């Protein structure tokens, strides 16, 4: 019954070593989001895809990139992770963006940077 799946749940990388986090969905939603959540803080929107259209938040660092090869999958690439990028990364989906559309979240990937 899993609807939004994130792999892995825990990821450890080294300072400066590229890492990719993955998200998949079985809901066939056309909007997918990536959020960063640091300890005791609210999730912060990094970017989202409406179908294949990529929408970046103005304050998202260039170090963060995303790919969406098809409706079901979306990837978050961190090109050169720094210690400040250690956080929980949450993927979410929603349907076609009409008012009141609900977001469904995955369980998150906790990233540790050594």
């Amino acid at each position, binding site marked *: 019954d899993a609807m939004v799946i994130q792999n892995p749940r825990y990821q450890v990388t080294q300072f400066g070593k590229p890492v990719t986090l993955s998200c998949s969905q079985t809901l066939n939603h056309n909007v997918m989001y990536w959020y960063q959540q640091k300890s005791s*803080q609210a999730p912060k*929107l990094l970017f989202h895809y409406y179908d294949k259209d990529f929408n970046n938040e103005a304050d998202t660092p260039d170090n963060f990139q995303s790919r969406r090869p098809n409706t079901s999958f979306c990837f978050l690439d961190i090109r050169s992770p720094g210690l400040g990028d250690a956080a929980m990364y949450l993927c*979410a989906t929603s349907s076609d963006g009409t*008012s*009141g*559309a609900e*977001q469904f979240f*995955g369980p*998150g990937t906790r990233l540790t940077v050594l």
Partner: protein
Amino acid sequence: TQLLEQSPQFLSIQEGENLTVYCNSSSVFSSLQWYRQEPGEGPVLLVTVVTGGEVKKLKRLTFQFGDARKDSSLHITAAQPGDTGLYLCAGEEETGNQFYFGTGTSLTVIP
């Protein structure tokens, strides 16, 4: 980025007490959602409010959307230890697709 302020930021109460969490913004949202998040997990949707002035109830939880669709409140009656968690509001911007989270309220209910 549209700012949503939640208050209080932290709340610790005894079991059986009532509480209200507020979510305020200067921006208008087409809808507003409330989530509850437990440590190490993703947020779980509690409710979506869409119409200004709308009130929704979910067992002991009452949610209200402000008339101007800029603010919302969550009221919990007779809080229980199982209500402990991080409560987040998230506003959907009027052009759709983007959701911005509030600053969060960490609730602890002491048995």
